[in-house]
């Protein structure tokens, strides 16, 4: 048994914080010390003084933080000792960790370091334990401890399984289930429309420069030049498109390149990114639900994105690391889910809504349309005709939504598919559902239907609603959840 001892963060932690400090204030530096370098106005001088004071203060704080922060990991608990003047101690039980994220950005890579985030399922500031700078060996040690704690937790001390526990497999066999090839990346670049991403960037650059240097005159003369030689636009446009396609591919590649999904008995590992490498791992039994999402364009192209819902946070929107490769052909996506999570069974055939529900759905008030029409009538009377096509779009959307909605309620699972133009499937286990609600409105009672609601743990909370299922299904759903006690440990 290894004794836990208080440890300091890696000595290069201050360096990382300094870099991010400089990064964060780069525009202020640029403005104060380059653009306004020669200015003697009292205002600018005060700003400069304040800014330098802020920098000095920040640098001191960074160093003190490093000096006073300690962490300690025992076999069951992570303890963080924080605070320079006000001491603060945080304990997090290892078995409460929902998922583990490892990010290695460019600077980490240069110094052969990495960072680690242990996510618990709670809300608030203390939701995650972050190790901003670690050596790879230390990161591996911590990951190992988290894994070990789970194993101890998973098996009660007096269980029959003790014999197996004595000799655990030294290295659980990890099998690669998916690797993104060039073909996948090209598809991803086109589907994500990242090749057009260059245009908004160019525009914003143009306007930013325009603020400093008066570009209008230059651009007008450029415009005049091309106006007289229209044929020149063809190669210029072609070059721009080619360039943006290349940039689009590079951004896609940096984000999704080296995308590998692997799994062993217990866990799923997702690894992605070229310059900044992120690794995500989640225990299979901590997966709260599976989402299969197809926005309009992906649905047209027969592609889908599978997301594993975790009780812990899964990074910023941008780095949604819980996503199995977002540009998978539908069949491939389903195959992956079946391979990775054999405990989940995706229902092949699901039930449609009763026919009468179509009339119910079309009958419901069109609030948005009413508001839009009133607004048009008041402000843009000449555009009032738009009201008709808007109504048509809403009716079509409701019709499609009705046609496409499916559900399946089996002994262990509930699966729901919704969407008018997009398509979203959600699959979860009864034991992962936290609470439920069945509702029915006056209008729904006239049609003999009810709505189902249920919550799953996630961040933010995953609340799912299925509208207008037969009232018998409502009762069945209620009873189904009430029977859960027979199935939960």
């Amino acid at each position, binding site marked *: 048994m290894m004794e836990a001892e208080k440890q300091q963060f890696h000595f290069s932690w201050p360096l990382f914080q300094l870099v991010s400090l400089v990064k964060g204030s780069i525009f202020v530096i640029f403005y104060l010390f380059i653009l306004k370098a020669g200015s003697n106005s009292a205002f600018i001088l005060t700003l400069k003084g304040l800014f330098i004071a802020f920098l000095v203060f920040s640098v001191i704080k960074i160093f003190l933080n490093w000096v006073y922060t300690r962490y300690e990991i025992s076999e069951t608990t992570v303890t963080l000792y924080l605070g320079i003047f006000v001491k603060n101690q945080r304990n997090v039980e290892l078995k409460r960790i929902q998922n583990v994220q490892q990010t290695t950005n460019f600077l980490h890579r240069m110094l052969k370091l990495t960072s680690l985030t242990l996510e618990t*399922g709670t809300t608030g500031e203390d939701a995650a334990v972050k190790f901003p700078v670690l050596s790879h060996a230390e990161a591996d040690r911590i990951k190992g401890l988290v894994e070990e704690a789970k194993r101890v937790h998973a098996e009660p001390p007096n269980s029959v399984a003790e014999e197996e526990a004595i000799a655990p497999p030294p290295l659980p066999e990890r099998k690669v289930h998916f690797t993104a090839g060039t073909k996948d990346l090209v598809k991803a670049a086109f589907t994500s429309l990242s090749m057009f991403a260059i245009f908004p960037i160019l525009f914003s650059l143009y306007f930013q420069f325009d603020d400093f240097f008066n570009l209008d005159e230059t651009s007008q003369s450029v415009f005049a030049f091309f106006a007289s030689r229209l044929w020149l636009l063809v190669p210029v446009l072609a070059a721009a498109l080619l360039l943006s396609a290349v940039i689009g591919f590079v951004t896609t590649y940096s984000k999704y390149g080296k995308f590998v999904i692997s799994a062993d008995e217990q866990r799923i590992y997702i690894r992605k990114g070229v310059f900044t490498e992120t690794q995500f791992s989640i225990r299979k*039994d901590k997966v709260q639900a599976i989402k299969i999402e197809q926005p309009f364009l992906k649905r047209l192209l027969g592609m889908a994105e599978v997301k594993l819902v975790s009780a812990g946070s899964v990074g910023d929107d941008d780095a949604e690391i819980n996503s199995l490769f977002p540009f998978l052909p539908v069949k491939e996506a389903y195959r992956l889910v079946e391979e990775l999570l054999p*405990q989940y069974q995706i229902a092949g055939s699901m039930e449609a809504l009763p026919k009468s529900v179509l009339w119910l759905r079309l009958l419901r008030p069109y609030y948005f349309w009413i508001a839009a029409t009133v607004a048009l009538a*008041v*402000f843009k009377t000449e555009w009032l005709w738009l009201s008709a096509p808007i109504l048509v779009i809403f009716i079509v959307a409701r019709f499609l939504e009705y046609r496409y909605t499916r559900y399946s309620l089996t*002994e*262990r699972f509930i699966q729901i598919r919704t969407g008018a133009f997009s398509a979203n499937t959600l699959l979860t*286990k009864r*034991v*992962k559902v*936290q*609470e*439920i*609600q*069945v*509702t*029915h*409105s*006056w209008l729904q*009672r006239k049609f003999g239907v*009810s709505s189902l609601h249920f*919550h*799953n*743990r996630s961040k933010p*909370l995953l*609340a799912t609603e299925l509208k207008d299922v037969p*009232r*018998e299904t*409502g*009762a069945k759903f*209620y*009873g189904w*959840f*009430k029977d*859960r*006690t027979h*199935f*939960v*440990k």
Partner: protein
Amino acid sequence: MYINIEEPTRRISPDAVRVWRLSNFIMEAIVFLVICVLLFAGNHFGWWQWVTWLLWGAIGISLLSSFYSVWFEPAWLQKTWRYEIDEEYIQLQYGRFNTHHTLIPMAKVEYVTTNQGPFLRKYDLYDLTIGTVTSSHKIPAIPKEQALALRAQIGVLAKIKDSDEEMDVAP
């Protein structure tokens, strides 16, 4: 019974009607006054015509909603509120036009609190708030002894947590 389930049976205090009438009346009166002040300001400072129209519309809606939330809603809500708390579940049911049936496993309850505002105090009533991992629910207007007993009861029952994990299911 529209949804064929074992419905909860315990009811909330009949005094809830008077408590809600009073508190809803005060809320509605404040909203009404704010709109009136805005309308006055609009006339005084010559705001756009459509703003004034909107405000008149808001006054109409406010009057209608006051009528509903002071006269009808409290009585209907009190009449339809049912709850049941046993070792395994908390069941809630309420609403006349929009009826809600809620089912919360006791093992998912994280905390339970009793709250009392000035109107509730007058009738010696408590609101019981039950918090879970994902949301919180309120059982309103319960007589004092019942509320405190329930709080203690839930406090004990909710200590038992289930693991979110499945037992080995027979195929």
